[in-house]
Structures are given as structure tokens and as C-alpha cells.
């Protein structure tokens, strides 16, 4: 499977060519200007014309003078100035965590082989899963034609770790060492059974594209701690061709209907972290500054003419890109890291694009005050050859996760950084595509999957929720995705019901319209 192109890269290219065309002229030609006006979106047009009608009606009642002053006021508040965190009154309460790192295990890690220990299954090898457990659940197209649903016990043994004596698979020895510092959630569950809707639901609270993701909500609500870096950064892990890689697209770090400056900024997994970061030859920093000032002027003209808030976002993005020309090279320069870093993260961390490298980068990003960093690791979609692929995946991820948490802890960052480890769903207890003593496959399973979190605001050293003997259904303390996200927001000082944005007639929020609740049992 081919890696999806980075959204930010292509955007960057587009804006660059647009720049080249516009800058020499310095003035927008009349026909282009006309085109711009025609290109106003329908929604914007309707929204504005509605207001115009309203004001016209008001004017006839109150007289022209009142209208003039009121229209002026509405202009400055509506289109020119976007609300700041202070206007939104966010954080709603003193947060435990100021920033978050989200380790996204795309594809759906098999909870039965990693963290949800089911010793009884060994005796049930190759027995069919009872109908009473499976109920009338609709399965994916990949296994609904199977004649049998034979139980595949985990190939790996589990050991007790830590003071809490929590069982962790032999595949995750490093995770085992830090298990006392984690809150394991065995009862996470989702509504979607296929990758795209499930991964959208996890990230945006909605299965359909077009809603802002968690990081965008945080950027919108919490604002920036460091103006030289984006508030929300996305790190993708290099693809391992031996694994079954589901595509990951920029929809997952999209700002949806929020201003596009809240979109995640992706760093590339190879080469320069950001394309065209260095000025081309012949262009020095001063020329670049002058050029940007000119572009900004033009953009301000456009803004005055059209009042499209997205123009503001564009101005902000040019400025951010300019500052990133110095801040990103400093961020990605690992030469200052002491030997202890490499001892902790392992030699893989020296190679850009590996999960270990990304974890190290995430720690450096967190140190620099970026609100939200999301690392994507693909390949967990183990429909077949679990015994062949899973050890590989775990080797890539296990030590790096441990290194990140330990590093944050010893540097005092774990106190106010939330770390989350989750995929979009779990995997079935029954084998997909036949079962052998030494190998099996597992299909998508939405009814339960295991996730963990740690750091600021999280009650560590606990296991939350329980699944039945088949790791099929949640039997205690279910945590649906909306509650999971509400809890993450709570750790960051946000009441999920209060961080809203009016769009399409609805006060939109990350947790959606179904009532969600913060999982108190997970809070410190």
C-alpha cells in the first residue's frame, strides 16, 4: 500500500506557486479580483446576506446612524477578529496537563495478544466462539462469510509486572516495566467496524469527514504557548512494507470547520522535516521578510474586500512558516542530545522517520510548548500472519513508548503532559482465514479494545474496565470514544460541553450530540 502524500507538503507547494505569480505584480488585477468575489462560498454569501437583510430591517426602525455604528461593530467582531482562548474562557478550570502527546496505533492493535490477558482461552483453542457472546453483531465483509469462528488464544505468554501485578504480554516487556505509571483502559469501545469511519471517530468524534480533530480543538481552545512552532504537530512513522499498512490521510488532522490555522502541521518522515524550509539561493532572510510583508498587505486588502476569515488564517500561516524556518531546524537538531537519550530510546532513534525517532522528537516538541503532538504508527491491521508481524510491530513500538514516558518523567514533563496510546478499534478473538497452532489472523473488533494513558491528570497504576472471557464484550465500566475524548479534554482543563463552535446551526463539539461524560475513574 502506498503512503498517502502529506497534505501540508502539497499545500505548501501550491501556496508557493501562487506567491511567485502574485509578488512581482504587487497589485491584484481587476479580473482576478472579480474572480475572487465570485468565488465567495455559498455559505458565506448566505450568511452575510442574511445579516444584511436583518440590518436593513433594523435600519428602517432605528434610523441610519444606529445602523452605521452597529455595522462597524459587527465587522470587527465577526470577520476580522477570531475568538482567542481568553474570549472562549478556556481552560474552563485549572488543567493538570498543558499539552498532550497521542501515540496513534493505526490499524487496530490486537488487545488479546498485548494487554487484555485471557488465560482461559488456551483451553478453548479451535472451539467456536459461542453465539451468545457474538450475539447478532454484524461482522466485516472479510469474515462474515466464514463457516466457523474458531477461538485463537494468544500465541504469547503474559507476565505480571510492577507493584500492581498487571499482566502484560511478552511482546511488550518495556510496557510492562512502566505499567505502574499507566492507566490501562480495557473497556474502550467504538461504533465503527472499518478503518476510515473508526479512525475518524477516534480523532474527530464523528465518522464522517469534515469535523475538526482533537488537536484542532485544542489549538482553537487553548491557543499557543510558543509562537515559533505550530500548536498542533503530526509525525508520521515510516512505513514498514512487511506490515499491512492502512492509509492515514490529512483528514485526520484537519481543522474541519474551524479556521485552517488549527490544522495539524505534519513533519516529513524523511529528508527535510518541512519542505522548502531553507531559503532558496539568492534569497536571504531580509528579502524573505520583505516579500512576506508585501503578501501580507495584499492579504489584508483581500480581507477588507471579502471579509473571509480564512484570509486571516492564511496570513497567520505565512507568518508561522517564516518563524518555522528557524524553529524547526533547531527542533530537529538532535546533536545536543546526551548519550543517555540514545541509551534510552535505542539506536533506531537516530534514524529519521522511525517510531523511536518520532517519540524523541515528540519529547523535544513537548519541551518547546507545542500543545498537541500526534504520532501515527501504521501496520497494526493484522488480518493474517499475526505471529509473523506482531513481534515486529511490538519491537518498533514497545521500547520507544517506554522511552518517551520515562524521558518525560525524568525531565519533569510528565507532570503536565498527557500521553495517550490508542488505535481505532480492537481485534477479534476468533481467527480470520483459518487457524493453525502456530499462526492465525484477527479481524476488526469494535466492541472492546485496550488503550492506555498517563501523565498530567491521569490516575496511574490502575486498570479500568473489564471485558468478558473472550475479550469480546465489555462487562464493566465501558468507555465509548466520546467519553474517552471528553476525559482527554478534561485533563487539559476543558469542559467538553463548553468548547463549542457554531456551524450548520449546531453548537458543534468534539464529543458530538450523544451525551458524553468524563470518566472520573481515570482522573487523578
Amino acid at each position, binding site marked *: 500500500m502506498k503512503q498517502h502524500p502529506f497534505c501540508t507538503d502539497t499545500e505548501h507547494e501550491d501556496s508557493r506557486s501562487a506567491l511567485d505569480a502574485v509578488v512581482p505584480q504587487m497589485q491584484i488585477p481587476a479580473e482576478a479580483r472579480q474572480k475572487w468575489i465570485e468565488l465567495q462560498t455559498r455559505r458565506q454569501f448566505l450568511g452575510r446576506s442574511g445579516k444584511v437583510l436583518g440590518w436593513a430591517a433594523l435600519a428602517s426602525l432605528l434610523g441610519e446612524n444606529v445602523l452605521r455604528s452597529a455595522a462597524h461593530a459587527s465587522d470587527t467582531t465577526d470577520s476580522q477578529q477570531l475568538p482567542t482562548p481568553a474570549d472562549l*474562557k*478556556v481552560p*474552563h478550570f*485549572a488543567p493538570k496537563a498543558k499539552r498532550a502527546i497521542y501515540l496513534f496505533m493505526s490499524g487496530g492493535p490486537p488487545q488479546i495478544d498485548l494487554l487484555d490477558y485471557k488465560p482461559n482461552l488456551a483451553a478453548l483453542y479451535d472451539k467456536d466462539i459461542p453465539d451468545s457472546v457474538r450475539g447478532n453483531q454484524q461482522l466485516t465483509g472479510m469474515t462474515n462469510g466464514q463457516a466457523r469462528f474458531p477461538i485463537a488464544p494468544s500465541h504469547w505468554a503474559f507476565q505480571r509486572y510492577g507493584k500492581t501485578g498487571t499482566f502484560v504480554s511478552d511482546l511488550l516487556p518495556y510496557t510492562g516495566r512502566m505499567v505502574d505509571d499507566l492507566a490501562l483502559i480495557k473497556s474502550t469501545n467504538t461504533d465503527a467496524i472499518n478503518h476510515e469511519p473508526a479512525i475518524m471517530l477516534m480523532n474527530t468524534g464523528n465518522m464522517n469527514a469534515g469535523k475538526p480533530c482533537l488537536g484542532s480543538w485544542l489549538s482553537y481552545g487553548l491557543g499557543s*504557548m*510558543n509562537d515559533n512552532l505550530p500548536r498542533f504537530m503530526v509525525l508520521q512513522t515510516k512505513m514498514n512494507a512487511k506490515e499491512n499498512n492502512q492509509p492515514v490521510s490529512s483528514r485526520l488532522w484537519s481543522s474541519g470547520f474551524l479556521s485552517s490555522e488549527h490544522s495539524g502541521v505534519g513533519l516529513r518522515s524523511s529528508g527535510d522535516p518541512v519542505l522548502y524550509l531553507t531559503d532558496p539561493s539568492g534569497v536571504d532572510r531580509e528579502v524573505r521578510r520583505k516579500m512576506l510583508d508585501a503578501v501580507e498587505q495584499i492579504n489584508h486588502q483581500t480581507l477588507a474586500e471579502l471579509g473571509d476569515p480564512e484570509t486571516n488564517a492564511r496570513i497567520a500561516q505565512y507568518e508561522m512558516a517564516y518563524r518555522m524556518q528557524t524553529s524547526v531546524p533547531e527542533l530537529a537538531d538532535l546533536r545536543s542530545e546526551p548519550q543517555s537519550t540514545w541509551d534510552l530510546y535505542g539506536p533506531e532513534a537516530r534514524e529519521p522517520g522511525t517510531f523511536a525517532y518520532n517519540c524523541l522528537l515528540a519529547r523535544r516538541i513537548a519541551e518547546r*510548548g507545542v500543545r498537541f503532538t500526534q504520532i501515527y504508527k501504521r501496520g497494526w491491521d493484522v488480518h493474517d500472519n499475526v505471529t509473523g508481524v506482531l513481534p515486529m510491530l511490538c519491537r518498533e513500538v514497545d521500547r520507544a513508548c517506554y*522511552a518517551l514516558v520515562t524521558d518525560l518523567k*525524568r525531565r*519533569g514533563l510528565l507532570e503536565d503532559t498527557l500521553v495517550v496510546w490508542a488505535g481505532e478499534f480492537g481485534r477479534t478473538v476468533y481467527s480470520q482465514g483459518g487457524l493453525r497452532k502456530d499462526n492465525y489472523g484477527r479481524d476488526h473488533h469494535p466492541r472492546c479494545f485496550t488503550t492506555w494513558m498517563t501523565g498530567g491528570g491521569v490516575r496511574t497504576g490502575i486498570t479500568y474496565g473489564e471485558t468478558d472471557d473472550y475479550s469480546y464484550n465489555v462487562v464493566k465500566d465501558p468507555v465509548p470514544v466520546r467519553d474517552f475524548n471528553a476525559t482527554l479534554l478534561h485533563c487539559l482543563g476543558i469542559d467538553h460541553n463548553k468548547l463549542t463552535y457554531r456551524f450548520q446551526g449546531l453548537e458543534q463539539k468534539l464529543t458530538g450530540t450523544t451525551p458524553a461524560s468524563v470518566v472520573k475513574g481515570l482522573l487523578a
Partner: protein
Amino acid sequence: MLKSSLKMPVSGAVKIWLGESSSRQRIGAIALCLALLSLPFVVHLDGKPHADWQQLLGRLHPLAVHLPIGLIVLVPLLEIYGKARPALRDAAAFVLALAFAACLGSLTLGYLLAYGSGASGPIVTAHLWGGTALSISVLLCLFVRPSWLSASAAHPANMLYPGLLASVVFTLAWTAHQGGSLTHGANYLTQYMSPAMQRWFDFDSQLASTKGSGSFYARHINPILDTNCVSCHGESKSNGGLRLDSYELLMHGGKDGAVIVAGHPETSLLLERITLPTSHKLFMPAEGRPPLQAEEIAWLKAWIAQGASASATALSGVVLHEDTLESLGPPPQPVADYSALMPQISQLALGQGAKLLPVSSLPSDGLILSTSNVSATFTDAQLAQFERFAPYIVEAELGRTAVTDASLATLGKFTHLRTLHLEGTAVTGTGLAHLAALPDLRSLNLNGTRVTAAAATSLDAMKNLRHVYLFNTPAQPASTAESQQDSARKTE
């Protein structure tokens, strides 16, 4: 047309039914009054549940009572406006009669509910007598009303009916309040009053007694019972003769004997009832109230297993979240409201320099001094400029800035600091003693500085300092700090 067609049968019916009441009717009414008054003594509420059908019907009582309430409240209104529109006066007689019938119905259902569910206690008794008095008063109203209508304005009988009606309304309000206290709990109305108002109503006196005591029972068991059980097993209503509002009463048990057997959770009736399947007839809390949480049940179980003591302060094997919070030390001093300085703070936020970020939208949570925009150029002199904001700053992020030991003296004046970041700075630790002036400092980050173990000892005396991070310093070189080392110091 419609009015006259209604008027005839209504007024006619009232006249026929009341007329000038005959002696037979009077005797009947007196007999009914006596029957109502004697009912509580005949059908004694013994606090034991009885037949299911009684509860089945009885549970309609909270619904049905609203009918007589509405009708009774309507009567004075009809009488008053009836002055202007006589048709309303005629209706008043009919409504009053209906109200009496509805009173009798509600009273019956109320009896069934109380008797069937085994409710008893002072509020139940009060509510019962209130309902009985109300029914009798309404009946009396029916009898005195005709003479009120016919009496001349000067006649003393003229005042009898209005006075009786006023007392009916008062009795109604009082009885309804008792009923409300039964369903929602006695502190339903006062719960969200300010403490001053509560004092005025004198409702918090009994609450205060259990608070402040340090035993596990007082801090954890009593509150669980208070929230979940006492509305039916308390002073006002003690179903099954069981009261759970004090330690002695809890241990005494109810009509079925003791509910707590110290040391034996498996034979303790209380634990048995709360752990039955929620659909079970005997499951508690009854009447569809939410079951106890797993943690609450676990605490009750552990408390019983370990002797159900009134005075024990801690239980083994029970990790209380609250305890860890308490061990964090005294709460930090409150931060003054910085709202007046907001213009200056916003000005800083727009500029290129260091910023003051509010911890939250509540000014009492303080400000964070954030330097990440300008870290390399932020010096001792710049820090000194923030001294005027010191009373509001709870966290200073000075990591990787150009501040030196000289800033430690300045920081000693930031007396509200709870978290201080100095990682990656040129601080050597010679001035760390200045930080002793920070009573609320809980976390100090000195990673990657040149602080030595000897310099760090000056921090030992700071009682509230929970975490000192010394990773990658001479005090704790990175090479020795094994990856799994927790470099955080815990004050024990």
C-alpha cells in the same frame, strides 16, 4: 348559551347534593371525619412491607395528589373572581366537592403506599396527619359554604368559610412540603442555599456533627449511606424500622435484626441487599434509585471485614484517592484577582516577548510566566521586570533561558510560585537557598543545569516541595541516571 346550559346542571347538582344540609348528611359527615381520624390507629404503620398490590397502587399516590392540590388551589380563586362573575361561584362549589373526592382518593393511595412499602418515621406521620386534616377541612368547607353564601355581610358566619379556606390552603402547603421531603429528602429545598441561609433555616446543625471527625466511618461510610440510603432509612422516614444515619443506629439494625455483622461481610444483611441483582425485589436502594458504585461497595465490604469500627482511621488494602490529595500538604495561598491588570497582560500577549498566560479562565488560578517565544534572550533583567506581577504568578517557565543564579534572589520574591522551571539554564545552585522563601513551591525542575548534590541539599528543608528534577546534572549525572530511574524526589 353554553354558559346557561352548563350553569343549570352544575348549580342544580350542587344544590341537590348540599342544599340546606339535612341532619342525615351531617351525621354522615361526622362519621366520615371520625373514620378518617381513627384510621391511623386502626391501620397502624408498623414499618414492615406488606402485599405487593398495595405498593403497586400506592405508587400512584405521588401522581394522584396533584389532582386535589390543583382543585383546592382553584377554589379561593373562583370565590374571589366569582364576585364579578357569579357563574364562577357556582363552579366553586362543584370544584370543592370534587376536591374532597380527590382528597379521599389520594388519602387511600397514600395509605396503600405507606402501609405496603413499610414506610414509617416522623415525616411520614406528619404527612399522614396533614392529609387527614386537609380532607376533613375540605369537608367542613363544603358544609359551611352555603351559610356563607346566604349570610349578610355583617353576620359572623360570613368570616367562617374564608377563614377555613385559608387554613385549608396553609395545611395543603405544609402537607405537600412533608410529601416532597419524603420523595426528595429533607434537605431538598435547602441543599443549594448559601450557608448563611441554611443557618437561618437551621438545617445544617445535624450535618455538622459527623463532619470533621477523622475516622474511616465518618469520612467514607457515613457519606455513602447518607447519599444513598438515609432518605428512606433516616430520622424522617425509617423503612423497615432501620435507620442508617448514625453509627449506633446502623449497628442496631432494623426489624429484621442486625444489618452489619462486624468481621463478616458475607453475612451482613446490608451488603447482601446492595449486591443483589438490580432487578431483585429486595435490592437496595429500592424504587429504581441508582445502585451503589463498585468502589463504594468495596469500601463498605472492607470496612465490615475489618471490624466495622467507628473509630478506625484507615483500612488496609483500601487505597483512598483522597488520602493522596491530603498528603500533598496544605492548600496553596490564594492568588489575588489580576483582572485589573488584564490590559497590560493582553498587551504582553500581543508582543514578541515573554507572556503571562492565565492558568484557566478563573483569575484565582493565577498566571503562568511563559518564555518559550524568547527563551535564549530572556535574561535576569527581564525577569526582574515581571516582579510586579509576582503576586499572581503560580508557575514560571524559565527553561533554556539566559537567566543565571542572580535570578534566584528575584524568584524568592515570587511567593506564589508552585512550579518553577529552570532546566537547561546556567543556574549552578549557589542561590537555591533563596527559594526557601517560596512556601507553595511543589515542583522544581533543574534538569541539565550545573547544580551539585551539595547545592541541592539546601532544598531539603522545603516541606511542600514534592518534586525536584535533577536529571543530567552533577548531582545526578545522565550516565548514572539509568533509564528507569525515577529522579523525582518524594518527601516522605
